[in-house]
């Protein structure tokens, strides 16, 4: 394991008589091997990752190309109350106001994805920052940050989000994503802190510390990279939480209705179209439900697939470095799923 000094492009690490010179390209190569290729190989070997990634690609395409090319929904763009598969101008039918249901699903996607990304990044980012600093520094810093996490964790999430949403009425999907995960990071932060408590005792961290490497460098170069798989798994879970929370709050009418969202589409189908009375407009409920279920499924599969990366034995074997785990091929580890 290597670590570099602050003022040099190369670093020499002496061990029992041998000298190894590591260049930037070597280090990039190492980084690629260690943190992208091998985890990717391990993850890709799991069919859940492949399916999850494929599903998410569909949403990304829908959010970028679909929203670009497919006409935006607006009232009276097609005939009112069309059923699904009646006409190509509105393949999934239209609302009582003549809005294309498929258009509504597609054009809600970009903002959903932005919301999901911002919520995921915020939740995992704050959790990593607080968890690693608390775990590594210990002492007063740890106590302060842990207490802060405890406070955040003890505030009931949904009521807090509802109050903030009503007061600030955010329109920007980035802000909405952040708002929805306003205290979601706390639990994750505590888990990361526990991970860091073990990592900080590792010999290479110890070595860096002995050599006087700064705390920030140790955190960013020695500790956080080792947490990445765990963080990625939780990123996917946080993203799924944002999908459900946003849909729920739009459905309840807590978030402003000027932003396209599948939850809003569900609410419209229920309250304006009476989709649950008589069943005539049920298809208007089903379309956004499929979109929500699809993205949730994609994120769950991705999270479960990435979870394998976290299992060092499976990872090592699949990366071609050891045969020791033969026979455990079918073993799967699952992330806890919080619906």
């Amino acid at each position, binding site marked *: 394991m290597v670590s570099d000094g602050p003022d040099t492009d190369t670093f020499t690490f002496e061990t029992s008589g041998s000298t190894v010179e590591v260049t930037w390209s070597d280090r990039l190569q190492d980084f690629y091997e260690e943190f992208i290729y091998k985890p990717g190989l391990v993850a890709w070997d799991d069919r859940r990752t492949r399916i999850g990634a494929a599903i998410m690609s569909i949403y990304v395409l829908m959010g970028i190309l679909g929203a670009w090319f497919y006409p935006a929904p*607006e009232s009276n763009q097609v005939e009112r109350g069309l059923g699904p598969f009646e006409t190509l101008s509105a393949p999934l039918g239209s609302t009582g*106001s003549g809005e294309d249901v498929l258009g509504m699903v597609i054009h809600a996607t970009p903002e959903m994805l932005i919301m999901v990304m911002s919520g995921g990044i915020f939740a995992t980012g704050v959790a990593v920052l607080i968890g690693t600093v608390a775990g590594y520094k210990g002492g007063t810093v740890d106590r302060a940050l842990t207490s802060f996490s405890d406070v955040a964790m003890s505030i009931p999430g949904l009521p807090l989000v509802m109050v903030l949403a009503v007061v600030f009425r955010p329109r920007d999907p980035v802000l909405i994503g952040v708002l929805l995960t306003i205290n979601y990071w706390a639990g994750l932060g505590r888990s990361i802190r526990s991970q860091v408590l073990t990592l900080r005792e590792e010999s290479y961290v110890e070595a860096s510390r002995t050599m006087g490497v700064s705390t920030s460098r140790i955190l960013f170069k020695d500790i956080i990279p080792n947490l990445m798989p765990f963080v990625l798994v939780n990123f996917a879970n946080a993203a799924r939480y944002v999908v459900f929370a946003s849909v729920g709050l739009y459905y309840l009418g807590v978030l*402003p209705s000027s932003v396209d969202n599948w939850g809003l589409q569900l609410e419209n189908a229920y309250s*304006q179209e009476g989709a*649950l*009375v*008589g069943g005539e407009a049920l298809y208007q409920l089903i379309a956004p439900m499929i979109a929500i279920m699809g993205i949730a499924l994609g994120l769950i599969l991705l999270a479960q697939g990435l979870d394998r990366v976290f299992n060092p034995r499976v990872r090592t074997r699949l990366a071609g470095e050891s045969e020791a785990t033969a026979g455990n091929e079918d073993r799967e580890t699952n992330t806890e799923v919080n619906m």
Partner: protein
Amino acid sequence: MVEYGDQSEEPFDRRRFLQLTGVASAVAVAGCANLVNNGDDENESPRHVSHVNQVPADIQWNSSNPANTPQITNRALFDPFVKYNFKTSEFIPYAISEWNFGGNTFELTVRDGLTWSNGDDVTASDIATQLRIGLYTGEPYADFTESIKTPDDSTVRLQFDSTVNEQIVTFQILADRFVHQKESEFGTYLETLKNDEQKGLKELGDFAYREPIASGPFEHDSVGQEQLRLTLRDDHPDADNINFDEYVFEYRESNQQAQQALQNGAIDSAFSLFVQTDILENFPKKVTQIQTPSNWGYGLYPNHSDPHLSDRAVRQAIQYVINRAQVRDNVSPDSKTAPEYPVGIASDNQQEWLGDAIDDFDTYGVDSTATEQATQVLEEAGYKKQNGTWVDSDGETVELPIMVPSDWSDWNTATDTVVDQLSQFGFQATKETRSYDAMLGNVFPNGDFVVAAAGWLYGSPQGSFPYFSLHHQLVKNNDAVTYNYPAADGSRGGNREDVTVPARSGSGTITVNPAERLSELAGSTDESTVNEITVEQAWVTNQDLPMLPVLEKVEQTFITGGEEWDIPKPDAEVAQVQWANTWLPRQGEMQYTGN
């Protein structure tokens, strides 16, 4: 003078019905959904189950306390002074059996035999008490009433300080008023009001009337979070017309829940429930829809302090752009109408009151998006289109966030369509939602909006007489919205200023003061003066657009008939009274058949 209409008819004898049907029929109907088990003795009695969208336990029946006042349950518990029939356009006497107008007096006679549920007679003194309380709480008749006296036990006489219009007095004193503030319960508040008005208003406004003494055919029995149970009073004059013992109101929070309850037979009736056409088609055949005019509907209140909406050109452009017929069709063509002329008069009465002058009025395109006219009027006012968006001479974009009650589904559909129409034209329009309670509590009184969706007409039955809706648009709307129209009352953010609009015929302009002119109308008994002012002020609303009319509502009341309930046809004269599910039982026209 008006006669008490239904007394000549032979009333249905409830006791005779029970004798005829006997215990055997009670057993026979035991399987019906709406029978109630009254306890250990397993006696079962017929009941009518209706819908209420307020948590029953929260309702209080003091109308002078603005919190949690009832929306329908009061109509079973208390007798109305009179009822208005929309088919005949006449008042039907009820708790007030006669009334006499004398120019500057108005005399009411209390119906003979009317009692409270505690056994006391309903006296003129009870009626006078609540009318006197109204003098302090700002009832409209307080503006011209000098005194209220009770010459005898059954007569109440109001003395006015000047001559007033008979129609206005009749609507203001009789319509939508109930016998509900018994002197023994409310007299103490009246005494306090006389001695210290502020203290009296505070005490009265805080009083939650939880166990009301009823004057109507049903009395308060029990209440919970989900259900209010009323039981029949044998000593009510119309009790013999009613052959079921209980009237139950069950809580359904949303329109959709009430629709589902009607569809699966969990409730027997629902008042003023919006039901879309396709849902209506799926209702069981036994569910009858009774439609009555509402003289009310979805309109837009521009905030006249907004830099753009204070410009008449922008208001006119918006009115031109909105395709009202398209909005109506998107919401529900069966329960909404598109007003032909955007004026402060309900559609049904526009032709009658405007007469030949109606051709001078601008329709602003009832079934089209009149983009050419909108463009012309905006460009003349110095607006121009920049990158597809309308901006003013300073380059400021015309932003139109339209605030709508989140819990009113039909209004949300209407707003979505309006937003699309305005956006396509180049206005930066968006929809904003708030709960109706929030709109009433903060948004309306504080004028905290750019455009707010609210009722542009006064509402039934007063909305049948143009004065009320013109007054509502121009001077003092009854939603208490601070919309900052300069001609409006100070309580609505105005200064009762003059308005200058183009002359109705020919060139030039006219300048009038709506507050003064409508006050003149209210004090006039001369028909031609009333007509002249009505046309003139309607013209002001049509040209200056203090509010933007979009839709009119047709009230939908639903009653389950079939084999369980014998009800009249929806267009029967007796059914054209609001709300049929509380009026028909009194008339013996909603009978439980027990099949």
